[in-house]
């Protein structure tokens, strides 16, 4: 089965979703990511969804869930690069992903993550 790769960069984990998400993939990602956060004791997770152009309510909820789980495991999560069409779809579905940090692109997302982690460590 396909899996979405999770890259480690210092104390951060980087997930870039480059393929169309389907339900199994999302569930696998949820499992892998929580596992990795725990093992690497990561301080932050960055999920880039700039290649994702179709979402449904399940994937939308999964994104929210993954972010919430990471928070429980004491890692800040930033979702970056959401496309306008995806954002509109999520809002129309009533999923505004409260509590998930967002950024326009990976660079800004990384800056935001550093700031959050620095604030937490301070």
């Amino acid at each position, binding site marked *: 089965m396909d899996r979405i790769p999770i890259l480690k960069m210092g104390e951060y984990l980087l997930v870039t979703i480059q393929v169309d998400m389907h339900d199994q993939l999302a569930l696998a990602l949820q499992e892998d990511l929580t596992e990795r956060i725990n093992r690497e004791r990561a301080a932050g997770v960055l999920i880039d969804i700039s290649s994702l152009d179709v979402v449904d309510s399940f994937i939308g909820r999964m994104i929210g869930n993954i972010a919430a789980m990471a928070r429980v495991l004491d890692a800040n999560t930033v*979702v970056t*690069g959401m*496309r*306008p069409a995806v954002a*509109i779809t999520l809002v129309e579905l009533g999923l505004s992903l409260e509590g998930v940090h*967002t950024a326009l692109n990976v660079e800004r*997302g990384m800056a935001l993550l550093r700031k959050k982690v*620095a604030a937490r460590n301070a």
Partner: protein
Amino acid sequence: MPSADPPRFSDLVAANEATLLADWMKQQKAARGTRLDLLGESELEDQSRRFLRAFRTALATGDLDDVSQPAWSDVRDFLREVSRSRALQGLKPAETALFVFSLKQPLFALLRGALGNATDRLALDTWQISTLLDQLGLFTMEAYQQTREEIIVRQQQELLELSTPVVQLWDRILALPLVGTLDSSRTQVVMESLLERIVATGSEIAIIDITGVPTVDTLVAQHLLKTIAATRLMGADCIISGIRPQIAQTIVHLGVDLGTVVTKATLADAFAVALKRTRDAAVSAQRDPTT
């Protein structure tokens, strides 16, 4: 019932076309609703003459009961054209319908003159002509209404295109001055163009200025909140500005929860906040040793 040989109605009209036209013109000019200032006498006469010609041809060939028959297609086309041009000229419905209805009296006068003694026939023909003209009048109104609807639809589209400019105020700061009521179709357009511009300019802050929004009800507030939520999902922030005192009152009275959205009284205030935030972000990025 048809006695000796009273002339057929279509022949009557054909024979007396000139008199009819003169009478009809007199009738139209005398009627209160005729707008000679907009139409012009020569144009009105030309329209009347052309209508009579088409009317006569249709009478000769078609039956008098149903104007949706193919025989009446010329008359219908002409009436459609007339009501269309009148609708575009800004005439009122009554003034447009008058064109056909004012023909009744001259026609009845003609009938009375020709069939004075044959009362049965006179009553029958009068009834027939009356229904016929009513049908034509209704058709005129339908065409008029249709033209007006076309105008309205076109204007709505123009409004939709005109009313959603997204302007870049500063590096990473966008402004969206909203003018007019927000309905769902407009919100969709506004949302799309705002999000597209956020991506294109890499902006972090969007200022939504609602100075030009006349009223904010729960629906408008919901549309605003949707736009803000979508902007946030993209990784940008929204500031609402231009909330007038009455609107602030309505928002609170309606129990609309603007939540964590930053609101400012004027666009200038919002701009100042936005500038401060982007500058702070830049400064902290510079200081950050890991960057």
